[in-house]
């Protein structure tokens, strides 16, 4: 079954081989006894209110998504080092966003004001400096690099390092044209590098009950970032820069915590022209690879599979593609589902199922609607017969 899916995915991947990519590297400590449960909520809100909306806004520009979602027991300094060092930029228009939520610390009188990240372990010699991540990503040649560390910046007995030493919205979200344009402006209207962290040197970062997310507990930095993102369309401006966004966050958090936590950032950016929208091509049957080529391919891993499926669905909903072609592909893709397969639609916040459909209805809706902006594949269960269960999160155009 995975071979057939791999076949169809490689059609699409080959067709879009030259497209630019936004790479998300999220490292979130969801198992720590003190902050783990807060970070589970933080991760959900970060993906639901920030990452998916950025992906949705950049998809019309032809941006593919590559997600490296490292959390739970997978989180470690070694994994972070490996992911950062091995990240490949395939186009000079690629964008890289690194976001860490977890414990942090700073060495006494460290030259950099940015902290080191514990990455879910307790050996101070294995902490990863945020500055190192920033420097590594800067050297990859992407159009824009954003490095954010949500953690404490308090000084303690760790050694200064320049590099690693050994690692409820209960419905589908809606985005207006204005918000999409603002996000495109933010991510494509400048080239260069950004580094930010959630507390000034010697300060700690805290978790709070957040009233605007149903009093759920998560770190206030991520909550504020996503809140500002949610309110973007209410801002009386036609453009937004990283400096404006991060300064607004810093002021808001400083005010709410009475000066106890003041995020800091630095931007090294130059203006760039926002490219025009592109229409991703709907895959066609006559470009199918030979099955024997697919048999030799490596196993398609879960993360790549979800990203690739999201890409296919997003192409399917693009109103710039002729409906006839979209419907034709929807019928072709329907064969990848097992009998009695179910597609479940998940809310923006939490994991509430808001709708359930059979594959024919789901794909037919995607192929014929002009209201859906982006489809994220949250989870997928496969069997010998095909896709048994599919969980998706949709972002709609605001009417």
């Amino acid at each position, binding site marked *: 079954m995975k071979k057939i899916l791999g076949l169809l995915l490689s059609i699409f991947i080959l067709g879009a081989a030259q497209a630019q990519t936004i790479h998300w590297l999220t490292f979130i400590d969801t198992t720590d006894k003190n902050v783990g449960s807060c970070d589970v909520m933080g991760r959900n809100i970060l993906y639901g209110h920030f990452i998916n909306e950025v992906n949705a806004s950049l998809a019309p520009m032809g941006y593919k998504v590559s997600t490296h979602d490292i959390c739970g027991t997978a989180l470690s300094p070694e994994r972070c080092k490996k992911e950062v060092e091995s990240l490949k930029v395939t186009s000079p228009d690629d964008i890289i966003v690194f976001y860490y939520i977890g414990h942090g610390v700073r060495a006494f009188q460290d030259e950099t004001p940015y902290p080191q990240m514990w990455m879910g372990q307790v050996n101070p010699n294995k902490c990863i400096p945020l500055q190192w991540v920033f420097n590594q990503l800067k050297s990859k040649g992407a159009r824009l690099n954003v490095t954010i560390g949500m953690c*404490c910046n308090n000084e303690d*007995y760790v050694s200064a390092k320049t590099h690693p030493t050994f690692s409820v919205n209960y419905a589908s979200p809606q985005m207006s044209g204005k918000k999409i344009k603002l996000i495109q402006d933010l991510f494509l209207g400048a080239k260069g590098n950004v580094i930010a962290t959630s507390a000034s040197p010697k300060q700690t970062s805290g978790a709070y009950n957040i009233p605007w997310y149903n009093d759920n*507990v998560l770190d206030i930095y991520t909550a504020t970032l996503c809140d500002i993102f949610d309110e973007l369309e209410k801002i009386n401006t036609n453009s937004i820069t990283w400096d404006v966004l991060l300064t607004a966050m810093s002021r808001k958090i400083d005010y*709410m915590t*009475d000066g106890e936590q003041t995020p800091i950032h630095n931007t090294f950016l130059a203006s760039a022209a926002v490219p025009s929208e592109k229409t991703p091509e709907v895959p066609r049957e006559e470009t199918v690879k030979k099955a024997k080529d697919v048999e030799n391919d490596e196993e398609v891993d879960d993360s790549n599979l979800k990203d690739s499926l999201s890409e296919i669905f997003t192409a399917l909903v693009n109103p710039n593609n002729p409906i006839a072609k979209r419907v034709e592909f929807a019928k072709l893709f329907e064969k990848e589902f097992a009998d009695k397969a179910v597609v479940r639609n998940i809310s923006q916040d939490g994991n509430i199922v808001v709708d359930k459909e059979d594959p024919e209805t789901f794909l037919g809706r995607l192929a014929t609607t002009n209201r859906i902006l982006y489809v994220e594949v949250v989870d997928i269960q496969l069997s010998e017969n095909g896709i048994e269960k599919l969980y998706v999160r949709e972002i709609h155009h605001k009417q």
Partner: protein
Amino acid sequence: MNTKSLLYCIAAALLGCATLAGCNSLPKSNARNGIKYQQSTVAHPLGDSITSIIINAKSVKCSLIAKSDTVPQNSVIELSQESKAIFLYLLCQPVNFQTDKIVYGRFMPWTRFTCAKGGNKVVHVEFDYSLKKWRILDHLCNTIVTGDTGTNNEQLMLFAQELFPLEPNLKLLSNKSTK
């Protein structure tokens, strides 16, 4: 420290203990924009048995756990009666028992005060001045309770500096945070 100051400290310590025995600590809430400090465990007054060991300790020894190379390896000081009174006064400040915020930093103790009443009746009180937190451990070093030092942190650091004047990082930390 002169006699007058010492008497003041002892009186304050006794007053602090009396206050502690009777108070119900409530979580402090920050009403700005409705956000509230989230507490992993509500900081509450120490139980009678722990309070008894600390208040009636026959000896209180302070060890410098985190230290730089300028300080000798086995830095353990047995507190004099004077210093013990100051330690009790500082520990019993009500502000220490008001909050226990969740913060994104690991507790790395700088100093440990070992209070021994006799036999197995030992508790350890540790402070992380950088994270502005304290914790109490039993004789097996299991954590019993944690809390925030809050506005008391500066005083606690100054006290530690008096005990270990050769440790330079305590002085560095007591400077205001840079923004």
